[in-house]
């Protein structure tokens, strides 16, 4: 992958948050280095999985990619154009191209709006469709994510968690974005539903040539969906490579520790691993 054909290129991204003390005279006592100089790129149609534990900086990195916060330093380029430091208004034309899927579909859907409104809202706001055309497009989107046209007039609370996540995906797709940032999109879902949503994201990627930045703490899920994986720890990317390479032949000690902590859903192998750890120690 040469730098030129990447959809997203992040270079030396830094985001420090000041910690302030004092009431009348606030002074900065220290800085939290949430993201501390990370670089990665994603080629069109590919998926980069960003894994890390809480506080590793993965969500801050996402927000910087989407232009939702101004980085302290570094560059975020989308199709070669610099995003870092853009104002909200300057970001607006780019919003169509990059959309987000959230962890908790319950909290990210307005409970007072009908499904049709929620999914159609971006189309309306960007002035792309209205009236009957809008409805037709929304019904098409609902169908594409495995919902039915009859769901158009329902409210979010009438849906299960998995169905709500499908609504969130339909909304993200509505503007035909190039990049989708998915922040823990399946971690709030039941086990039997997680696979459905992952497979749906896979299918949509093939169909629309989408590029994903997929953020999650579940390495099994990340490995399944990603072409490449970057492991974050304390604001830095400690290792990145192809998904199989990172999972099967990790180099960095933190990655090794992380992988060793993932439970093996197989009693015999789990016992064997524990025995090996005991013997080794």
């Amino acid at each position, binding site marked *: 992958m040469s730098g030129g054909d990447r959809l997203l290129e992040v270079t030396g991204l830094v985001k420090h948050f000041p910690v302030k003390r004092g009431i009348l005279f606030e002074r900065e006592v220290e800085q939290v280095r949430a993201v501390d100089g990370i670089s990665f790129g994603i080629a069109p149609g590919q998926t980069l999985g960003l894994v890390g534990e809480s506080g590793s900086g993965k969500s801050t990195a996402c927000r910087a990619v989407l232009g939702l916060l101004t980085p302290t330093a570094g560059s975020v380029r989308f199709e070669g154009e610099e995003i870092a430091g853009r104002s909200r208004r300057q970001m607006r034309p780019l919003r169509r191209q990059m959309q987000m899927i959230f962890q908790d579909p319950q909290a990210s859907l307005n409970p007072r709006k009908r499904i049709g409104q929620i999914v159609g809202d971006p189309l309306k706001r960007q002035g792309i469709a209205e009236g009957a055309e809008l409805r037709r497009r929304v019904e098409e989107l609902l169908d594409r994510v495995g919902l039915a046209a009859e769901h158009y007039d329902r409210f979010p609370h009438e849906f299960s968690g998995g*169905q709500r996540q499908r609504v969130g995906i339909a909304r993200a797709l509505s503007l035909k974005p190039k990049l989708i940032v998915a922040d823990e999109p399946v971690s709030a879902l039941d086990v039997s539903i997680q696979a459905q949503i992952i497979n749906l994201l*896979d299918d949509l990627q093939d169909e629309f040539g989408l590029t994903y930045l997929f953020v999650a703490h579940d390495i099994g899920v990340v490995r399944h969906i990603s072409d490449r994986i970057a492991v974050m720890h304390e604001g830095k990317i400690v290792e990145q490579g192809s998904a199989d390479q990172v999972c099967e032949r990790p180099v960095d000690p933190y990655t090794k520790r992380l992988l060793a902590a993932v*439970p093996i859903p197989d*009693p015999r192998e789990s016992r064997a691993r524990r025995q090996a750890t005991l013997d080794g120690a």
Partner: protein
Amino acid sequence: MSVGPALLSVDDLRVGFATEGGRVQAVDGVSLELAAGEMLAIVGESGSGKSVTAQTLIGLTRSHNAEVKGSIRFRGEELVDAPERKLQEIRGSEIAMVFQDPMTSFNPIYRVGAQIVEAIRAHRDDVSRSEARAQVVELLDSVGIRDAARRIDDYPHEFSGGMRQRAMIAMGLALAPSVLIADEPTTALDVTIQAQILRLIEQLNRERGLATILITHDLGVVAEVADRVMVMYAGRVVEEGTLDEVFYDPQHPYTWGLLGSLTRLDRPRPKRLPQIGGAPPSLRSLPGGCSFRPRCPHEFGRCLELPPLTPRQPEAAGHCDRCWLDPEDKRGKREVDGRIGLEAPAP
């Protein structure tokens, strides 16, 4: 590892709630036995009834709109209709419970140590404050909190998530209970911390003979620590057996689906993740017969009738399931692409 008579025996437990949308049978006929030193895992998704079962064991679901039937015996004593005072005595001192979210289980405005001291003194009024404090330092130390003598005066927010869960477990252990009920104890934690907490629970279970019920949705966690497994679906147990029976000879199609949809880091990744179609049913409108029927590709005429939970193979008397399929046929049906799984429903 059944090592003695049951400490806790539950027989045909039923918990129903009256809700605005009608009556809901959250738990429908759960029976279990738990002996000292044993670790039973209850696995299920949201709405399966696993947490309601656990909460009911210590009387936490009692309310005017709840109906609890069946029997819960602790050391032979009936708890279902026991007075609240009796339950209060047992909670904490005999049966401890640890919840998913350690942030909401501590009161944020009191120091961690003070809350555990309080828990001890509520049950043992002969223990002085300073004695209790010394015990708490020891407890915090025993669950792996470093520098316990100093950390005892921290507030909950000064602890990390893993430390709070350790402190929760310390509080649970303060009165040397014989049973620990852990409801998704590691779900809110990072995976490296999860591994530590599981080791801790396992150590308490093995070394102190603490009988443990572990409630989880995560079969990986189950494989690491459990002796026996109960799989629940829509309020009922659909399969139960030893850890190896359930993982290597699963009898219920729902269990096949759960096992099949797991991601394995130690195996090459499949092109598509095997999935279970549909969604868990609403308890307000359960399908008649087998509750898993609408999602099951192996459904046949008899499934309209609810299968009983019984052993179906003479050589494994403790391995029960609720499925009408013939055990011989199951061996072929559960094999999908060379591993156990649920085949995709016919389009």
